[in-house]
């Protein structure tokens, strides 16, 4: 039935948790493209039939015309579903690059969900963000609300090793250690879940 596979692809994307990616469904994607080719072939054979009968293709309205029309509409529909699938995934990838990926590698479990071109897209997007920020010599990725206190207390959640160089000192980030860091330094680690802020 026309457009069902494309519908499945879009539904799979919609059923996922909002803002999170599932692994790129290459198989279903290829099947939809195959279906598009089938529709295209059927369309061409119907048009050939009309030409053999000597009818003017643009204006004749016989049964072949409507059959060709249905194939054409199914093709457009499949295209729309494929485009929406890729577009919405790219939106999530941009979000990831902005929030997490600027200087660092993504956790492996997220990385394996990308397709090859999506990986490239992620890298290129991070690179252009970085070059933009370095040209401005301004980090636009930090919290937009000016804080009351430029320093915050954090607890390290995972072992990050020693001798990490921050903007004003070097620190030793062993697990469960507490530090008093500059807000802008701590932000990148908190966003990646490696530290947590301590309030109160």
């Amino acid at each position: 039935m026309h457009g069902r596979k494309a519908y499945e692809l879009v539904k799979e994307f919609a059923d996922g948790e909002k803002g999170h990616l599932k692994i790129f469904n290459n198989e279903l994607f290829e099947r939809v493209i195959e279906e598009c080719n089938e529709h295209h072939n059927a369309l061409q054979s119907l048009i050939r039939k009309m030409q053999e009968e000597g009818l003017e293709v643009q204006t004749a309205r016989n049964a072949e015309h409507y059959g060709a029309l249905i194939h054409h509409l199914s093709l457009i529909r499949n295209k729309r579903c494929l485009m929406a699938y890729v577009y919405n995934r790219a939106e999530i990838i941009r979000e990831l690059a902005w929030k997490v990926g600027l200087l660092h590698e993504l956790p492996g479990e997220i990385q394996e969900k990308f397709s090859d071109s999506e990986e490239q897209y992620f890298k290129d997007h991070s690179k252009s963000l970085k070059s933009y920020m370095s040209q401005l010599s301004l980090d636009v990725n930090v919290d937009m609300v000016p804080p009351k206190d430029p320093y915050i207390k954090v607890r390290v959640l995972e072992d990050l090793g020693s001798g990490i160089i921050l903007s004003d000192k070097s620190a030793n980030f062993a697990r469960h250690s507490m530090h008093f860091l500059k807000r802008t330094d701590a932000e990148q680690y908190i966003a990646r879940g490696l530290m947590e802020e301590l309030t109160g």
Partner: protein
Amino acid sequence: MANYYNIDDILAEEEFVPVVFHKAANGVIIDPSSETNSVEQGAKVELPLWLAQDLYLRQAISISVPACFNQRTRLEIQADAACVDLKSRSPYFYEFGCKIAPLVGDKTIEILLLSAFKIRYKEILTKAYTAAYTTASKFLTLLTKEESNLYEAAQVSMSAFKKWRMGGPRLQRASVLGRKRRSFE
């Protein structure tokens, strides 16, 4: 064309509508009851909305009111709109109704949708702010996609307000990274 990439719009257009073909069509396998791969004039078929819309504009078919707007649903909505299980009729009840109304020429659909939405909207907001988790989950199964989005938005704004009131850590782990898994060491 602002909805071209919109996932909800695409899914809403996949709903089936009953149509009657005015013109025959060859070379397509749409009618499951015909032996040849063609559709005859006067055949009654269920088509997805995206196909039906375009064929209607080219005057090849006529569309009749889909099953989810039948008399039974209307009576239920008139009785008590807040308890009707619209999700089982169609998870895109309102969007579907809005798209169908000009194609079918039924003026009463608009009034039906509006009255149902008004009553349910009130219910959604009150439940989002006050209901405990157990009662709420049964209610959630009755909601269409659009209504669930409203419900979640209400809950998010409520928790944001509470957080502002109590104070809390401002910097958070990025939500795109997903839920934290406990590390076993």
